[in-house]
């Protein structure tokens, strides 16, 4: 530690700290524009100049490391003079159009300039004008206002992982731009809006819709991935106007993904259901809550009285814990065990085998301290945009080695040390190889922990070179030196969780992890997957799960915020089952074509209009309050379910608040206490595994595109434009195209178990042999399993 003095105040700071770190630590505000604690230091704006004893010239606080005994003056005559002159320079070419600038009221330049008092401009010459750039549907530019701090450039390169913006030209002509007419493609691009200290980069969707001082700020929790990012929902006239990150170092640092930032547009979509609707003679009619709920209660009662097992309850992955809990309670009250939230799964063989609730296995920041990481089955940037930056950091700062076993070769924008890109089916075989290689490297006797049948399978496995390299990496072996006790993590992504052989992949991964003493974790497929598990929105032992409920159609379904054909493992199976049902009630935030076979639609509130709780992938239970009142007649889901419980005459539905529901979920105990006891990724017993050959068939790789994750996101127009709507396609590598005699660019017929659709065919070398990539979207709802067999034929 070093002792220094700033403006007469003593402070102890760590070696290597800069003056600005030290000043920030004791709350001395040094003005700055280019400096940002999460970015590399550029020291180009010169706003932070301060006086340092024994130095003739003022020094930039952001770039000057402190040394023992340093005496720093941030407000001395010479410091203020330097700062004032920099401010004058910054303003000579800056348009003074604050009244029409979207940044007005939250502009760092404006704030600091005011602090230096308005002097009459001494600059008589013409001001610089910079041509605007179109960098996509999310970010609006006004480049004349740019002060060349390069925060945006550094952010996209260092955090986003790809240099998408640059400062081109030289001197006074230097300007920020993307390459020619390219849009910024980063899924984390919106953060540059917050980073820009002036009004050069502003939010396109938000533009001109409100002034910052008119907005009421409400804290909330992001709803589109499992990170549990802290957000601030900003509201005007009971309408969500925009969403910004709230700083939470241990979760989202100071960022959020574009999905979490711009999804709010979907909240205000014209598709919002604002009143209960009942279908009569095939026509939707508006209804009042009372008659709608009574009607629902009666219909459900009739089915339940005949055979409660003829009911199916499907809860969306994004529902709150309270909604999940109350749905389960309604089901159980009616005597039905068929409840599930794992709509996108197809393999449930592990049910009953888990020792607890599967979770990430560690805390979010732990990820970036790891030395060796193996990710199995994840399109990282789509599934976990912000979590991926932690991996990027691990690789960059910690020299971690990242290994991937994946059916898609999409670039995670960070160096991957070892990877196997193979068909979904082959993932199991690769894991068998890795397990065998690992067991050769680790001195644990395999016989002690692996079942004999698995040992037998392993005997005949031939280990490939890449599998050996992954195994060696996990064991800490390195090219120049070996790590003694490396921090290792093995994580399963969404693709694995939706995999038809999830049980085998899970078993093998767990074994590989435990042989290496590694953290083993499941990355959450949604904002509340862990929470819905904790709230037991799961089938009772012996009851039907999300897949069997559709495979063996029920007479009646209760859907909690589900768009069946877009949210389930098999779109085909979901629509068939619902079409055949006698009665379907949908508690939903939006109207949807996918609900065409529903009989009643009950408008429930999205996360901004209800209170509730989510549990993030690291097991953090986070409750939030409504940011605005529900739209129209919509009501919070928990209230609707409570009233339904009352109307059904069920016991234990006397809740006055979501808080009370949460208390019941946790038995009145502090959630964290309960959660830490319940989170557990271990299996009670290992599964038998055989290696399977699937040669000769074409396998589908069905993924959920970045902006197709849930009903809100799907209805956010700017995000849809940013995703370029470029999701309806079938893609294969060139070798496969040649093999099958198909031609990229042509339209093809794609079929699965009787259903088919036509899609443009693409050549994509990131797709492995024997596979075709067909994402889930409204154009592919005729298809079946995400990873099922599939055929592709030319249309003649």
């Amino acid at each position, binding site marked *: 530690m070093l002792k220094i003095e700033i403006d007469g105040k003593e402070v102890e700071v760590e070696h290597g700290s800069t003056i600005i770190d030290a000043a920030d630590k004791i709350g001395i505000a040094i003005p700055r524009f280019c400096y940002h604690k999460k970015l590399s230091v550029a020291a180009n704006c010169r706003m932070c100049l301060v006086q340092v004893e024994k130095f003739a010239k003022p020094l930039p606080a952001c770039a000057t490391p402190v040394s023992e005994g340093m005496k720093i003056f941030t407000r001395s005559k010479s410091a203020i003079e330097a700062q004032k002159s920099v401010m004058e320079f910054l303003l000579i070419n800056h348009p003074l159009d604050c009244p029409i600038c979207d940044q007005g009221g939250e502009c760092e330049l404006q704030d600091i300039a005011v602090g230096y008092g308005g002097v009459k401009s001494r600059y008589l010459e013409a001001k610089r004008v910079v041509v605007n750039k179109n960098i996509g549907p999310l970010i609006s530019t006004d480049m004349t206002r740019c002060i060349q701090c390069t925060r945006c450039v550094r952010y996209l390169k260092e955090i986003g992982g790809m240099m998408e913006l*640059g400062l*081109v030209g030289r001197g006074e002509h230097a300007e920020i731009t993307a390459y020619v007419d*390219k849009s910024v493609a980063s899924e984390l691009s919106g953060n540059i809006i917050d980073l820009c200290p002036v009004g050069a980069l502003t939010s396109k969707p938000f533009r001109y819709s409100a002034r910052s001082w008119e907005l009421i700020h409400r804290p909330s929790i992001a709803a589109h991935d499992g990170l549990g990012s802290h957000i601030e929902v900003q509201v005007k006239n009971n309408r969500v106007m925009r969403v910004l990150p709230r700083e939470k170092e241990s979760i989202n640092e100071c960022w959020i993904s574009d999905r979490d930032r711009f999804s709010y547009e979907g909240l205000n979509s014209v598709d919002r259901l604002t009143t209960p609707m009942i279908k009569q003679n095939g026509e939707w009619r508006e209804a009042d809550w009372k008659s709608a709920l009574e009607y629902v209660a009666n219909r459900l009662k009739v089915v339940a009285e005949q055979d409660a097992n003829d009911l199916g309850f499907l809860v969306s992955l994004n529902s709150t814990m309270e909604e999940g809990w109350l749905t389960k309670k309604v089901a159980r009250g009616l005597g039905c065990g068929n409840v599930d939230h794992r709509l996108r799964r197809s393999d449930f063989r592990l049910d009953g085998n888990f020792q607890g609730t599967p979770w990430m296995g560690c805390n979010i920041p732990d990820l970036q301290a790891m030395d060796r990481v193996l990710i199995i089955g994840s399109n990282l940037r789509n599934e976990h945009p912000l979590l991926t930056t932690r991996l990027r950091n691990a690789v960059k700062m910690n020299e971690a080695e990242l290994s991937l076993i994946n059916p898609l070769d999409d670039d995670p924008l960070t160096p991957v040390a070892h990877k196997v890109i193979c068909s979904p089916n082959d993932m199991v075989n690769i894991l068998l190889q890795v397990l065998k290689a690992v067991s050769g490297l680790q001195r644990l006797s395999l016989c002690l922990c692996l079942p004999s049948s698995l040992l037998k399978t392993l005997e005949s496995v031939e280990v490939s070179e890449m599998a050996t390299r992954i195994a060696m990496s996990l064991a800490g072996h390195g090219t120049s030196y070996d790590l003694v006790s490396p921090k290792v993590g093995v994580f399963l992504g969404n693709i694995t969780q939706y995999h038809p052989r999830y049980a085998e992949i899970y078993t093998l991964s767990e074994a590989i992890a435990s042989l290496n003493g590694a953290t083993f974790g499941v990355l959450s497929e949604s904002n509340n997957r862990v929470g819905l598990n904790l709230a037991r929105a799961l089938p009772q032992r012996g009851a039907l799960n999300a897949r069997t409920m559709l495979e063996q159609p029920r007479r009646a379904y209760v859907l909690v915020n589900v768009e069946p054909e877009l949210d389930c493992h098999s779109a085909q199976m979901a629509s068939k089952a619902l079409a055949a049902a006698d009665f379907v009630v949908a508690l939903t935030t939006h109207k949807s074509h996918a609900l065409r076979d529903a009989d009643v639609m009950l408008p429930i509130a999205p996360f901004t209009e209800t209170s509730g709780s989510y549990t993030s992938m690291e097991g953090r239970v986070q409750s939030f309050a409504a940011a605005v009142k529900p739209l129209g007649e919509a009501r919070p889901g928990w209230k609707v379910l409570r009233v339904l419980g009352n109307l059904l005459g069920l016991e234990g539905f006397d809740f006055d608040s979501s808080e009370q529901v949460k208390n019941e979920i946790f038995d009145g105990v502090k959630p964290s206490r309960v959660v830490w006891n319940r989170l557990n990724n271990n299996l009670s017993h290992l599964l038998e595994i055989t290696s399977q050959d699937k040669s000769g068939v074409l396998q589908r790789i069905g993924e959920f595109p970045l902006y197709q994750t849930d009903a809100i996101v799907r209805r956010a127009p700017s995000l849809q434009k940013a995703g370029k709507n470029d999701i309806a396609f079938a893609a294969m590598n060139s070798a496969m195209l040649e093999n099958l005699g198909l031609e990229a660019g042509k339209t093809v017929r794609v079929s699965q178990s009787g259903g088919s659709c036509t899609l443009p065919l693409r050549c994509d070398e990131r797709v492995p042999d024997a596979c075709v990539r067909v994402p889930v979207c409204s154009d592919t709802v005729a298809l079946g399993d995400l990873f099922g067999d599939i055929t592709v034929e030319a249309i003649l």
Partner: protein
Amino acid sequence: MLSQESLAKIDRELNKYPEDHRQSAVMSSLRIAQDELGWLSKETIAFVADYLRIPAIAALEVATFYNMYDLAPVGKYKITVCTNISCMLRESDRIVEHLEHSLGIHMGETTADGKVTLKEGECMGCCGGAPLFHINNKEMCEHLTPEKVDQILEGLK
């Protein structure tokens, strides 16, 4: 987009730098591309970036930073006249005037037949030979007089 010959030249430049620092060759690669194609279009810059496996914007930053890259078509001969202090003291303005007069164009323009472009340059580090200009970034012509300029222009085919 570029000839084998140019690509070979780029490869030769790449040899000067460590394997994982291909970006170091971007300046010479852009120069080689410009020599072959006359100027650097956005497509050329993107091609070079691709060849070096660097982001296109990084190559664009470089192409727009250094004076001698031409981001718009120029004449067959680009004459860049130094007008900086040492040249100015030795009456480079006379050379400029003479060039403008003989070619019938102003600084920054190209003759109608697309043969000659005139540009103003900064110090070329040859002030002892003032006044001077160079042709196509390559050939330095020093100790100019109007007569000598005439001779040089004569020689441009």
